[in-house]
């Protein structure tokens, strides 16, 4: 109780420096936890967001670009493949499901993807989970100018069943590039927390035969999404398309290819983490400096406490505990910073990619980081605590008579 009272009163007496120091710690802790959690969760989410497919077949080019374009609906298409190639892979004995897609148009910035209705009726985008069309809607018919909107796209575009729209040419929105074709929204997909939520899906033929598109390419596809019967099939197809062939690219396995992306940008989160570590160190040093600098002002109080019978170790413990308390305050406020930052970043990632990060997810860093902050601050408190420990009582209380 005594120690708690001494610490509490000291924190109150130096409220401004306590708050400023704790705010610095909160920023460091929050930033560190956010960087860590976003990195960990986005890596896991992206490598697991295969939307139910094992591989992607596309034009000759980068596997990463193929995956980003076909699975995450980011980046431009590497090029087209002929319908015959899609048909050939569909008939391959190692292929369980082949879903063709075509891209190239958008609806006010949201990508239009042409595909076949089977994507929504037969494919499980996650184990045991199929696409669900919200009540009152249905999947588009393959031969109609109809659309099925992903949940996020529908929400942002304010689309509802029965709405009509005209697509815009290209992947980036240009109001002048409007097509003359009218599509009717016939269904809204329930949220899947996958990139599919950010897409307005239309029939493959609808996209291929859109007014203004080159009629010679009316049967071309952007990619074919593949489910394999066995993993061995992936390696067999990899040899066939990537090593022996020179026209097409097979991206397999999808998770490993996305992981390569994170490997390429690992330097970025290392820099961010380094910045956060430095901020944490500076914040801990500021705890040391702020308490140390206030020692002159509190020497008399400490000497009075000693004169009242407080032991040296009590005085040491009070200053040490005060430093740890500032660390604990900073760590607690750091969670507020973390939640705020993480929510912002998660929203941004969801808006850009459709991948959802879980704010409520646990991770050891969420206790290691606050504990490390408190320990660093307590460590920073040792020097002023030692100074307090050595406070000469008689000299401090009164001049010698």
């Amino acid at each position, binding site marked *: *109780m*005594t120690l708690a*009272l*001494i610490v509490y*009163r*000291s924190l*109150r*007496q130096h409220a401004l420096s306590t708050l400023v120091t704790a705010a610095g710690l909160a920023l460091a802790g929050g930033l560190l936890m956010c960087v860590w959690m976003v990195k960990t969760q986005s890596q896991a989410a992206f490598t697991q967001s295969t939307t139910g497919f094992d591989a992607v077949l596309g034009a000759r080019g980068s596997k990463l670009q193929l995956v980003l374009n076909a699975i995450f609906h980011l980046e431009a298409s590497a090029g087209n493949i002929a319908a015959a190639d899609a048909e050939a892979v569909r008939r391959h004995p190692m292929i369980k499901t082949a879903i063709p897609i075509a891209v190239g148009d958008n609806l006010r910035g949201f990508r239009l993807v042409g595909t076949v209705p089977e994507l929504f009726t037969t494919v499980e985008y996650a184990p045991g989970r199929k696409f669900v069309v919200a009540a009152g809607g249905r999947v588009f018919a393959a031969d109609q100018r109809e659309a099925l909107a992903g949940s996020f796209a529908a929400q942002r575009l304010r689309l509802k069943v029965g709405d009509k729209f005209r697509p815009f040419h290209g992947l980036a929105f240009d109001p002048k590039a409007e097509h003359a074709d009218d599509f009717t929204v016939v269904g809204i997909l329930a949220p899947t927390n996958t990139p599919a939520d950010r897409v307005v899906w239309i029939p493959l033929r609808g996209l291929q035969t859109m007014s203004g598109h080159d009629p010679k390419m009316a049967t071309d596809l952007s990619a074919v999404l593949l489910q394999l019967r066995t993993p061995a099939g992936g390696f067999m197809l990899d040899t066939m398309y990537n090593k022996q062939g020179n026209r097409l690219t097979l991206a397999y396995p999808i998770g490993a290819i996305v992981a390569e992306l994170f490997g390429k940008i690992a330097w970025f989160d290392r820099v961010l983490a380094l910045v956060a570590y430095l901020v944490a160190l500076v914040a801990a040093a500021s705890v040391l400096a702020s308490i140390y600098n206030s020692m002159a002002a509190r020497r*008399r*109080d400490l000497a*009075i*406490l*000693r*004169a*009242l*019978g*407080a*032991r*040296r*170790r*009590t005085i040491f413990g009070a200053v040490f505990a005060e430093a740890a308390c500032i660390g604990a305050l900073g760590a607690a406020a750091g969670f507020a910073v973390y939640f705020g930052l993480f929510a912002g970043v998660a929203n941004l990632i969801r808006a850009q990619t459709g991948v959802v990060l879980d704010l409520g997810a646990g991770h050891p860093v969420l206790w290691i980081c606050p504990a490390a902050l408190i320990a660093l601050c307590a460590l920073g408190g040792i020097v002023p605590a030692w100074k307090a420990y050595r406070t000469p*009582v*008689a000299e401090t*209380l*009164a001049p*010698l*008579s």
Partner: protein
Amino acid sequence: MLAVTDLTKSFRTPEGEALEVVRVPEFSLGAGEQLAMRGESGSGKTTFLNLIAGILAPDGGAVRIDGTEMSALSEPKRDRLRAEKLGYIFQTFNLLQGYTVLENVVLGMSFGPRGADRGHAREVLERVGLGHRLRHFPGQLSTGQQQRVAVARALANRPRLVLADEPTGNLDRAHAREALGLIREVCREHAAALLLVSHDEETLAQFDRRREFAEINVALQEGRR
């Protein structure tokens, strides 16, 4: 109650010479006894009290309080003995400015055998007439009230010996008389011995037993200061 034998203390001057401030061959005070000691400013009285309180280490000699020799104890045990058996009233009160009146007294008690007994702290503060100022901070009190808080803090642990260093030095005549009366009365109530040092004649005149500090401090007699 208090027995001092061959107590010496020197300080080093800026020129590096040793300056003997205290040399007391013998001094004692009985239980419940009240003694006023007269000494001029700079005569070493505060150093003498600090040596008795154990907040200053002597160069030699012994201080025995209630049968226990201070200098034979380790520092933590000396701190404990001080908290248990001694009450110290300073000239400048030495109240903790960031703590309330009640907290000042509670903290004073918390290092002693009673622990942080808020109920008893309240009683003592009521006894010195500050029951209505418990949540005030020292800066919000008059000088006389601050002195009463210092008295309450020194006596809250029912010490066997109270040391008072110029306790009325910062008070006007009327408040000085009142404060001194209170200290003596509360010491009597608690059966605590009181050793008061002062250079103020009016303060000293209120005590039956008075001594000159120069009589007991050989360092002063020999003019070494």
